[in-house]
């Protein structure tokens, strides 16, 4: 009876890799996440974690930035060269630089350590929801020099392909579905990160600024995405002013 139910659970278990040098913490998390249908595998150093992450058998990689030997950011950099596995970063609270660097290097989301494990589960679920979205059969979107293909999740700008992370793609897709309209930061967070915005949460702004940087400007000097104070962001159509 017990064996049968645990086998059933294992069937639905989602494999997660955590790279964190705190052995006791990973043990506790393993126990906690088991109840949430996640099967946690732990690696306690950078090179070992990278090797496991590259095996592509995990749905999400949880990566601590502070690792002995090889920094978490270096692990992320090397991982991104070969794999697009979703990455959730754990950063020290107050270390904004790590956070921004991590998101720029292609992490999907971050969580300040120490974190509430319920929040960790919510973030993991959000990432999974986004990555599990079946490729959409929706028609490609053309706006000025920009082309977005939902089925292949690819973007070209001025004919050149643009490499976007999962979150950045979803963010751009949200913008392009309602160009010229103000979208609140809450809605953008929900759409791009698959979770509600929390107070003091700046990750959406980092994603927007990454997107701006990767897409460049219209005609060399006009921003495509404009911040509207107190409201959110707007994707400007060519020749349009809010």
């Amino acid at each position, binding site marked *: 009876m017990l064996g049968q139910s645990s086998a059933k659970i294992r069937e639905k278990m989602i494999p997660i890799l955590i790279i964190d040098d705190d052995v006791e913490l990973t043990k506790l998390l393993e126990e906690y996440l088991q109840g949430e249908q996640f099967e946690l595998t732990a690696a306690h150093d950078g090179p070992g974690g990278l090797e496991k992450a590259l095996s592509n058998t995990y749905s999400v990689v949880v990566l601590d930035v502070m690792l002995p030997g090889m920094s978490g950011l270096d692990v992320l950099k090397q991982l991104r060269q070969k794999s697009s596995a979703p990455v959730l970063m754990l950063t020290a609270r107050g270390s904004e630089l790590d956070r921004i660097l991590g998101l720029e290097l292609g992490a999907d989301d971050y969580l300040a350590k120490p974190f509430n494990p319920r929040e960790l589960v919510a973030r993991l679920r959000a990432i999974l929801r986004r990555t599990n979205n079946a490729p959409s059969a929706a028609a490609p979107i053309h706006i000025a*020099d920009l082309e977005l293909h939902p089925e292949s999740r690819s973007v070209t700008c001025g004919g050149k392909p643009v490499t976007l992370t999962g979150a950045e793609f979803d963010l751009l897709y949200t913008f392009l579905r309602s160009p010229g309209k103000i979208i609140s930061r809450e809605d953008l967070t929900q759409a791009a990160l698959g979770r509600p915005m929390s107070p003091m949460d700046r990750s959406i702004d980092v994603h927007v600024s990454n997107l701006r940087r990767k897409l460049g400007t219209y005609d060399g000097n006009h921003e495509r995405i404009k911040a509207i104070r107190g409201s959110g962001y707007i994707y400007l159509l060519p020749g349009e002013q809010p």
Partner: protein
Amino acid sequence: MTLRTLFVKIFLCFWLAAALLIVSLNVMLWVSTSSEPNPEKRRGAFGEALNLYAESAVQVYDREGRQAFGQYVDRSRKDAGTEIDLFDGKGDPIAGPSSPDTAKVAQEIQQSGEHVSHLTSLGRLTWGRPVIAPSGKSYIFVTRLRQPYVPRQLPLTGVIFTILASGLIAFLLARYLTSPVKKLQTAVQSFAAGNLAARVTPELGNRKDELAELGREFDHMAERIQALINSQKRLLADISHELRSPLARLSVALELARKNSNEKAEPALDRIEKEGERLNKLVGQLLALTRLESGAEKISSETVMLEDLVQQIVDDANYEAKPLHKEVIVTQLQACRVIGSPELLRSAIENVIRNAVRYTPAAAEVEVCLQWKLDTAELTVTDHGPGVPESELKNIFQPFYRVSEARERSSGGAGLGLSIADRTVKLHGGTIEASNTESGLRVTIHLPLAPNHRPPDADSSHAAFSPASLASG
């Protein structure tokens, strides 16, 4: 270079001393020589020589005749630049007179029967005396010496030249003395600005004097401070890690406990969670404050749009204030650009606004106003709370300061928020102060504006953003 620099001081002092010495020496010399113009009185030998000179000249004329005397006079003029005039006993000229001076002197001698000497304006001595030749004839001998003795005039060009030369020496000396001081200053400034690797000994070369010693002492000190700051930075990182790791484990263990416990344990577990969060926040604030005060925090120099930052913080604060029936309202929001770290400024302003929200009673507002005046951005945050006693206004920026123990405890503040705001604003070259208004406490932050603080005019940017320019792109 101002008059106050050590270089100028040393240079001027030495030069002045040297110039005074040169001038006074010359004046003394001049005074001592010109106060006694009569050479025979001053120096017997000189007078004897002149007497001999007069006698030998008269003998030449008396014995060898006019022609030999003429040759003698020519030789004297050529060799020594000395004019010799000879008059007979009645004062009538035999040879000469070569100048009106000599004629005058001869006349005086003829009248007085004594020797006479005159110092003329050009510094030439005209000297004469009656001479009785061995033949018994009496003559009057007058001579004009070109430069009979040491200058009687202040040698101005010489003095000026020596003063200029001493100026050059004083300049070199001052530079030699102050250049290591300058190097030391550069090193100290660079060190104070955060370059902990700044050293002065390599700059001083082979110097071995007291200044070089000072430089070496500075280097020793710099080394120690560098080691201390580095170890403090490491310590901060270690503390951060070591304090937070147990907290991270605690929060996971807590959630596990929740799963395995019944409802009765909920309030206690909630309390554990709340205290854990409080501890975590306190650790974060303490680390932030220590980092700010140790100078370990490097301030980035980005252009920060203060109005956007303030609006975001107000939005976030409202997110937390609304459930408490409080509201943060923006009364004015002018575009202000400042240079600094957006993250540090965010936490500083956030702390001030949160503090205001905490003390504002329910159903009341916190007013936030951002405007620029001349070259500063002024942010005021006014609450409707109880205010702070006038004498305590300055103390509220001290760490862990509490106006009222009981009230602060109940409102859950750690007492570090305003300290962090204070240190951050000061690091950005600004000021922060508190004052009481009729409604409550007002905290005013002044920050220096960026040189390019005024955003481009909305109208002009609209004109530049034309559809035509985009169609081609």
